[in-house]
């Protein structure tokens, strides 16, 4: 590698900071028509009839379409594909998400009627004229009522509302370990339902191109995933579908699948012969973006008298909402993280997906990883409290040492490397853990309660674990002096354009402004991972490194031809191919010119990378908070992270990812929650006024230190960073709150630890003491 090029800020920033970003809503096309969807106002109801006559006659209206029209055009439901058994041992009911509800709606906000008009306002106004005759049904708004006997069934085919069951590990072994244990602690807790709330709402623009192909400009993080789904629904070959993703304004897992509205704009475009765009309104986002988390945990940890962990058992009930797909299984794929960074001789766990009358849930930043880490890290704190051992010490006693690497946790994951004690001692130093008791005493003098929470997250990245996904990339060196890079991974805010462009510039010895980065176009590559699973660097970046190797190898062949030498004798450095031991050299771009004259392809190379295994970013989070016991108000006074993300490619971008991840985890711990009315299953928190989104003053300053333990899984040594901040912060924050409240005898508080909830817990504790 040549000398590192000085980093001068992200390449995409000049565009984004001047208002020249290209989000779906910013595209301008002639004859563009606008879509609006009429959504169910009931959480559970039969549709008796739909009257669209008045809407059809409204000004500017081009089409009013229902599920019956979809069926007439032969367009089916979004696929399910889940093979797991349900509680009776039979294969899961294929509870597919319809594009437009036909005879039954199952959540508030479900698309029922599509209206396309000349303007958004006209479409929306026509929406008011659609008459839908509903027959309301009883609804279930949460896991507990859904599992109660006699509960209304979300699907008649699944009377107990259990969509799937999954188990791993041997229960008898755990029982034996627990029987011989000095202590068994139990955590029953709920990791709340939240929503991604990307600042750019979902949106899609569908059109039929000159060749009759289905083309969609989508706000998505997974163009290559979307293509087969859409091709399947429209019954065309994948080559007849093109997905384009421009700038995407945040996604966080939520924009990773094809949504009904994506199908609708293409279908309408085909029917009308005009491009059609739909942009979500914020209230629609709250209702109809796939939700995240909502996992009910019941877990036990067994320890011997010295605090050595003997076994772990966890039961996880996931509120998957009303439809089932592969995206409903996030808790299973990433559950291995419950082993934490500890030696745990026996682990047994089960996951059940529970149907409710809520929007479907799906991966959200971390996707099961924060939930898994929360379970083990809360259990350790509960055990430490019970055994009167310092939580930091209890963790140290159980760590997997570096000498044990590679380490098989016995529960899915095999860690390739990691220095967990180093993370902890680093965090302790950075957080001035030694000075904490003095700070606690000082807070107490002011009548405040101070707490310190620790969490040691470890998460799987670049997966799925069983078979990591492949990424593709290609490079074209042009005689005009530019290098074009196409990647299968993509940025939805992470700065991947910058990271990749620097990789190319450094390796090829060209300046960064000569690199053209192209992402999110399914026409350009055979496939790609999109964004997700903390894989952009570790898989996508490593793939680009391979493509760069291939580019240089190809260049050596061409240069050999030009210099009348053997490729083996050609060296490449600083943008020049040189015949070894001579002054004879040609530049990268001269090679391109030569290649362009010789053949149509010119100087191009492609590469693909399927990692042999996954990686395991890990770290130690320390959260320090102060509570005003009179009001329950909570302030996060410092937040410290030591994170091993392997080799750090760009420290600025890594810091940004960790910051953003912590913001989302901390916010869930102290405020974010989607709340549904228990009876009607109506969403009570459907706007920024009711749903806590962290603002600048809600968040602490975060001290971050990276500790690089490079992985050998990919050539860059990178482990992945996108989810790291979130995975540890739920647990660290709740542990801190519980630590602060522990002098009052409070052992646990549920998230979100809002001032009201904290105040109530303090009041209850005081009353109990007085009684």
């Amino acid at each position, binding site marked *: 590698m040549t000398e590192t090029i000085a980093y001068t800020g992200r390449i995409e920033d*000049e565009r984004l900071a001047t208002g020249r970003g290209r989000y779906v*809503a910013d595209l301008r096309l002639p004859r563009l028509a606008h879509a609006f969807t009429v959504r169910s106002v009931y959480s559970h109801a039969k549709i008796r009839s739909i009257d669209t006559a008045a809407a059809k006659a409204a000004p500017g209206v081009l089409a009013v379409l229902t599920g019956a029209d979809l069926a007439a055009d032969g367009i089916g439901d979004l696929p399910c594909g889940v093979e797991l058994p349900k509680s009776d041992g039979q294969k899961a009911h294929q509870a597919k998400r319809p594009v437009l509800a036909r005879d039954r709606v199952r959540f508030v906000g479900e698309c029922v009627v599509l209206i396309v008009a000349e303007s958004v306002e006209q479409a929306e106004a026509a929406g008011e004229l659609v008459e839908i005759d509903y027959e309301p049904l009883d609804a279930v708004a949460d896991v507990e009522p859904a599992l109660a006997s006699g509960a209304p069934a979300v699907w008649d085919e699944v009377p107990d509302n259990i969509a799937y069951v999954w188990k791993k590990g041997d229960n008898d072994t755990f029982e034996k370990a627990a029987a011989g244990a000095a202590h068994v602690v139990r955590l029953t807790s709920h990791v709340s339902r939240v929503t991604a709330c990307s600042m750019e709402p979902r949106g899609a623009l569908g059109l039929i191109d000159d060749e009759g192909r289905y083309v969609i400009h989508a706000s998505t993080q997974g163009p290559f995933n979307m293509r087969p789904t859409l091709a399947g629904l429209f019954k065309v070959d994948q080559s007849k579908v093109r997905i384009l993703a421009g*700038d995407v*304004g945040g996604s966080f897992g939520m924009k990773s699948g094809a949504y009904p509205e994506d199908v609708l704009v293409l279908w309408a475009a085909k029917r009308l012969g005009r491009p059609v765009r739909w942009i979500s309104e914020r209230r629609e986002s709250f209702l109809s973006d796939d939700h995240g988390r909502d996992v009910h945990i019941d877990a036990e940890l067994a320890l011997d008298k010295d605090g050595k962990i003997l076994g772990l058992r966890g039961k996880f009930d996931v509120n998957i909402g009303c439809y089932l797909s592969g995206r409903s299984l996030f808790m299973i794929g990433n559950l291995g993280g419950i082993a934490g960074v500890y030696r745990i001789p026996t682990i047994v766990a089960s996951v059940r997906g529970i149907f409710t009358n809520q929007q479907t849930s799906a991966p959200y930043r971390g996707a099961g990883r924060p939930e898994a880490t929360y379970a083990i890290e809360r259990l350790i704190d509960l055990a430490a409290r019970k055994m009167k051992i310092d939580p930091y010490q209890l963790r140290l006693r159980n760590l997997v040492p570096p000498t044990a690497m590679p380490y098989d946790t016995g529960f899915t994951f095999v860690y390739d490397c990691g220095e967990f004690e180093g993370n902890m001692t680093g965090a302790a130093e950075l957080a001035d853990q030694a000075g904490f008791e003095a700070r606690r005493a000082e807070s107490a003098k002011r009548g405040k309660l101070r707490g310190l929470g620790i969490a040691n997250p470890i998460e799987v990245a670049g997966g799925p674990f069983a078979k990591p996904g492949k990424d593709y990339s290609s490079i074209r060196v042009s005689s005009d002096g530019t290098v074009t890079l196409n990647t299968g991974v993509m940025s939805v805010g992470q700065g991947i354009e910058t990271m990749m462009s620097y990789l190319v510039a450094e390796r090829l010895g060209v300046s960064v402004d000569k690199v053209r980065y192209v992402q999110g176009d399914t026409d350009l590559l055979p496939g790609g991972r999109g964004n997700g699973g903390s894989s952009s660097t570790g898989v996508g970046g490593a793939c680009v490194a391979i493509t760069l190797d291939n580019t240089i190898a190809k260049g050596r062949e061409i240069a050999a031809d030009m210099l009348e030498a053997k490729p083996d004798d050609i060296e490449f450095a600083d943008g020049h191919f040189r015949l070894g031991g001579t002054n004879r050299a040609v530049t990268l771009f001269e090679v391109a010119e030569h290649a362009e004259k010789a053949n149509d392809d010119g100087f191009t190379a492609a590469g693909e990378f399927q990692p042999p295994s996954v990686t395991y970013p890990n770290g130690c989070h320390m959260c320090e908070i102060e509570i005003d016991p009179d009001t329950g108000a909570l302030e996060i006074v410092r937040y410290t992270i030591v994170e091993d993300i392997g080799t750090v490619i760009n420290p600025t971008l890594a810091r940004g990812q960790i910051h953003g991840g912590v913001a989302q985890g901390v916010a869930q711990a102290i405020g974010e929650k989607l709340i549904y009315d228990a009876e009607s299953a109506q969403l009570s928190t459907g706007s920024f006024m009711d749903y806590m989104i962290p603002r*600048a003053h809600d968040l602490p300053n975060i001290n971050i230190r990276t500790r690089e333990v490079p992985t050998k899984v990919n050539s860059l040594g990178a482990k992945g960073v996108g989810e790291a901040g979130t995975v540890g912060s739920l647990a660290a924050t709740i542990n801190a709150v519980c630590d602060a409240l522990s002098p009052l005898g409070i052992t646990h508080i549920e998230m979100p630890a809002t001032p009201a909830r904290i105040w109530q817990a303090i009041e209850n504790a005081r009353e109990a003491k007085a009684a």
Partner: protein
Amino acid sequence: MSTDAEHTGSQGRSDPPARVTRRAALQTAASAVAFATAPASNAQQTGPTTSAAAEGSTIRLIVNGQPRTLSVDPRQSILDILRETLDLTGTKKGCNAGACGACTVLLNGQRINSCLALAAMHDGAEITTIEGLAKGDDLHPLQQAFIERDGLQCGYCTPGQIMSGVACISEGHAGSVQEIKAWMSGNICRCGAYAGIVEAISDVAKGGKL
């Protein structure tokens, strides 16, 4: 720290009552909006409020220095005029309800949430959007500072953050990190780029480059 900001934060953070009445929600909204658009009342004083509420009225605006004569529907917001009529798509719609700040522009030098401002009410107003901030190829100092401080990720909130930041500085509300955080609390960044946003505003405020 402004009490308004505290209020906005704690409202957002607490569990909502089991049944949120529309009225209560609107009141909460109003308090958040009042803060996020603190200068709006001033703006209304400075911007001549005409009787232009009739159907299809014609108004004159100066947008990024250019005079524009527009016929507007009385229901159209400045945000919609900017994006849909003038094709100035840099200003973003994040909520259309005054709660996220993505649509922040300067109206007669004051920051407003353009999604809540009816265009017809602002005949004669001067509007600056993100597109009007740079001088030719020279970025505005705050745009430059956002880039240097990594104050953006997905970029969707960024135009609003920058416009709001410009006003935050000119209002004299950028004296400390705490003050900046409070006076920027009307602008949501879901990517959590707040550290860089606050640093960028602080840099420019300190440098007196505005």
